[in-house]
């Protein structure tokens, strides 16, 4: 089958999830209670909202990831042809990885990979 199978799979996913939730909705008579709508925080009413500015720690990794993920995307076509092209492809990618690795070492030296 071709790309149409993806649409079929999407329909399957939605049907599966929605079906399950709907069956629950139909058969279950819920009761209403103001406590039920409360966010769970170990049984204590929440004090501050979590929707505000957050520690930067995770974002540095996300940035680094972007760099390396782009590299990975470049490597895919290279990986397919490397056997046919031979040694020259290896040297080319060595240069490419070397430059990236220098960047990685720089980030490491700068402490981007250290928490806080």
């Amino acid at each position: 089958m071709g790309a149409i199978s993806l649409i079929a799979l999407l329909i399957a996913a939605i049907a599966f999830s929605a079906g399950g939730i709907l069956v629950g909705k139909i058969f279950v008579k819920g009761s209403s209670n103001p406590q039920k709508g409360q966010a769970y925080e170990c049984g204590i009413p929440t004090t501050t909202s979590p929707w505000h500015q957050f520690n930067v720690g995770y974002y540095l990794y996300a940035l680094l990831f972007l760099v390396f993920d782009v590299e990975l995307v470049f490597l895919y076509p290279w990986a397919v042809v490397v056997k046919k092209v031979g040694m020259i492809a290896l040297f080319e990618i060595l240069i490419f990885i070397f430059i990236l690795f220098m960047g990685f070492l720089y980030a490491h030296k700068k402490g981007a990979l250290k928490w806080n």
Partner: protein
Amino acid sequence: MFSLEGITTATQDWLLIKFNPTIALAIECVIVILLSISLFALLGLVLVLMERKVAARIQIRLGPNRVGPGGIFQTAADTLKLIMKEGLTPDTADKFLFNLAPFIVMMVAMLLLAPIAFAKNFQIWDINIGVLYISAISSLSVIGILMAGWASNNKYSLLGAMRSGAQIVSYELSAGFAVLTIVVLTGSLQISEIVAAQQNGWWLFKGHIPVIIAFVLYIIAVTAETNRAPFDLAEAESELTAGFHTEYSGMKFALFSLAEYINIFIVCAIGATLFLGGWMPLHIGHWEGFNHIMDYIPSSIWFMGKTFFLIFLIMWFRWTFPRLRVDQLLNLEWKYLLPISLFNLLLVTIIAIMGWHF
């Protein structure tokens, strides 16, 4: 001999004779939908039971043994219970995103089924960029988790989602590099060609130590990508109660947990395909007799056997190791796995170019 290939071709031929191509395609789609839904349901039931049984055996206890013989209907009963539970949405949550998140996670899991070769010529879509497709789609699942964590308006969920975001994107790299080693050796992104390249032996045995290292890296990385212990920081229950799905209940929770198990199945299936030859029986070089005997075992059983072996391996990890801390987790990836996998990729490239592999 039982073969899924025969059934599919027979069905396809019959459909094409009976109906015009468009209707035949539509019917095929319906069959795919039904098959994938039942595969999901079945996998969910089997994997949860398997996890509980493996955990029980490792922890010197019996595990579920009340519902049905040996407890085999336990998960069915649990699912029924989860369906019958009231799905709560917190008043303060972003209701649209909150309800959308489980759908996204499920869709990603479902889409990943497309290029997997379950048996010889039994594949939904043999896309020529199969491996790339898998890494592209699988990186989408983090969106569902982030969405769930953010929309819940719960601090545990938010922390869990953030952790899982950082974790999944990081380990994506090592998984990608590990996959690339096989692409380098095979020279193709297509799943069927990768399997065919293992006609005379699996890559794990053909590719010397670098491929074994890649295999280990792959297993570690996908364990982290599927948020499994010892990398289950997104739902570390001793720290964040239940992490990103703290607020989910009933069927919505079931969908998250089902998606987790399906994802394990998929990454293990891909691992089995890339390193252990997929549905390819155990073939050793030129031992024709041995290879023929191996061929008598249906290819679907070979595939499932290898996949479930890898699943067992991942479950074994979970019930043995303590959980890492979030900064150690990222350290492990950026300071150990990533440099090693980069170096390993170069090694494999040299092997591939020089033709040193078997």
